[in-house]
């Protein structure tokens, strides 16, 4: 079934755009050990995830904490090894890249961390922070390095550049720190940018500024971006497609407007209900939310993983068989038996 959905994905887009990264039936399991040695099961953080991302496309992965989105991201970054499944970047399988190949890969993938202050070394000046990836990337000429630092800082609007070069991260505001993080992720001119909740630690008024900056960079450099977040309201301004992740699976994949206007999966509907818009009427009503909490990834529920919390569960089916991807509307994939 997964292969089928992939076919559909490919048929529609392959002639139009080039695939940058494709993730194929990815599983990332972490072994649990009892007393340090005997096997005690697996944490199935990512359990069968398949998607492609095209050149110049932004996708958003939305899910709650503990749904496996960080494990997915770290595996894509090459920090974890897949248990099974493949990650292919520009027709090269990550598992077949050697040390040099991984160097090449890392210079092509930028990473924007969630907490800018935690991501910047407190004892390094901004210049040193931005210079480090260039040194590791093998740019020997000091003047070249300086030029690229200036260009990157210019692009993220940390200007005048001279004012910031000798500063330490704690001297900057949260928004400026996040700009440094973005400049660092962009400095090797990557093709793919992975942004892990880049604005969740920032003030509301700064959030929009940073999101705009990211979307400008994306346009100017024709970047592919994977934007990871739990906040659906910021997604619509920034991404083309949204993937909703629940308990290690992608349960719904669709274009942004499609997903927000006509959500199909009961979990997506719940997420949309849970997201507030500023309206005084909110205070008068209770929200209708699914009971319970996301399941443990060690013993996920059988069948559809959302079935214990789902109000539209079909007895005898949902708890027994894992739903494949159905396509109720063109290009709108949803792993839910309601749409068989």
């Amino acid at each position, binding site marked *: 079934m997964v292969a089928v959905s992939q076919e559909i994905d490919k048929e529609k887009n392959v002639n139009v755009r080039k695939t940058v990264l494709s993730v194929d039936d990815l599983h990332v399991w972490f072994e649990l050990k009892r007393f340090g040695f005997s096997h005690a099961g697996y944490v199935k953080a990512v359990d069968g995830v398949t998607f492609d991302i095209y050149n110049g496309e932004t996708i958003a992965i939305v899910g*709650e*904490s503990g749904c496996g989105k960080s494990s997915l991201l770290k595996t894509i970054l090459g920090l974890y090894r897949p248990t099974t499944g493949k990650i292919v970047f520009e027709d090269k399988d990550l598992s077949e890249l050697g040390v040099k190949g991984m160097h090449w890969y890392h210079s092509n993938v930028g990473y924007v961390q969630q907490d800018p202050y935690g991501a910047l070394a407190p004892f390094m000046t901004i210049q040193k922070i931005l210079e480090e990836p260039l040194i590791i990337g093998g740019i020997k000429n000091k003047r070249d390095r300086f030029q690229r630092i200036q260009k990157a800082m210019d692009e993220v609007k940390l200007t005048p550049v001279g004012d910031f070069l000798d500063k330490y991260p704690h001297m900057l*505001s*949260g928004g400026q720190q996040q700009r440094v993080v973005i400049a660092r992720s962009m400095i090797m001119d990557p093709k793919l940018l992975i942004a892990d909740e880049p604005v969740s630690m920032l*003030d*509301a*008024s*700064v*959030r*929009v*500024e940073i*999101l*705009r900056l990211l979307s400008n960079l994306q346009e100017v450099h024709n970047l592919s971006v994977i934007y990871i977040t*739990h*906040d*659906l*309201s*910021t997604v*619509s*301004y920034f991404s083309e497609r949204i993937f909703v992740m629940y308990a290690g699976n992608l349960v719904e994949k669709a274009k942004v407007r499609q997903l*927000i*206007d006509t959500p199909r999966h009961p979990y997506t509907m*719940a*997420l*949309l*209900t*849970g*997201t*507030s*818009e*500023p*309206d*005084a*009427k*909110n*205070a008068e009503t*209770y*929200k209708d*939310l*699914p009971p319970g*909490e996301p399941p443990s990834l060690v013993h996920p529920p059988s069948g559809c993983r959302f079935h214990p919390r789902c109000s539209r569960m079909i007895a005898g089916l949902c708890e027994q068989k894992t739903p494949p991807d159905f396509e109720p509307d063109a290009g709108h994939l949803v792993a839910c038996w309601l749409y068989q």
Partner: protein
Amino acid sequence: MMKQDNNLLSIENLVLYFNSHQGPVQAVDGVDFVLNINRAVVILGESGCGKSSLAKAILRLLPRNAGAYSGHIYLRGNDIMTLNEEEFRQNIRWASISMVPQAAMNALNPVMRVGDQVSEPALVHLGVDKHGAIALVKKMFQHVGVPEDFISRYPFELSGGMRQRVAIAMALVTSPVLVILDEPTSALDVLTQANIFNVLKRLKKELGISFILITHDIATSSELADDVAIMYAGQIVETGDAGRFFAEPLHPYAKKLMASVPRLHGDKQPDFISGRPPSLINLPKGCRFADRCPSRYEKCIDDPPVIMNNDRKVKCWLYS
């Protein structure tokens, strides 16, 4: 100021400065507002505008570097600023006004069972015995939606949402009339957040509690708000009824703040506020928002008065 019957808390000219090497940090600088019984007021503002300091000032939880601290806080007509430290501790803090501090879910004692932690304020303030306190805890757990058998669990055995509920139960166990919530859901997931707000709404209805909700998240704040107060650089620049505020904010800062909220539906692009809030040490003269304000004019070099505009108060020359 008039002291009406349904008036619970009224704050007049509250000031709290902190001492620093560069001079006093004017975190709370002449705040006035009124809160009626069984209402919820939301205090909205960017980080560093003094909203958490305002909560601390109300509860008199002052750090060691606190400097000037003055003004009046009337709780049901009595000025609690005149009480001495011991009276305040016995009668006000947690007995009448309690607080759910920022990141409260991570502030629970990791080596104490949650039931014991929640019962502690009851033992100290209500003079009940261990048995009675546990009974109270059970009642509170029911109100906030924590299963009763969680009483003997440790914090690490609970999810973030459950821990936050426990922290709320801890603020409720002494049956205070007012609970101050400082960013109660900012570290939580969407569904957990929505669930906590369901709980807070229910508590307000069932127990008749009043809330002061301090947050920078405008969208979720509307889940609880009856009244809104906008704070900027240590001062309140607009107060008013939530319905009218969310429909049409008055102060230019409030307008900008509302425009920065990303929305799910509609095509309106969110905007951002250029510039940064002023340092609370070197505050500009005149209107503190003037530097960033799109509609500033000559008058803004003087400090604007608080102007009444159809029952709403706004500190801006535009409405004079």
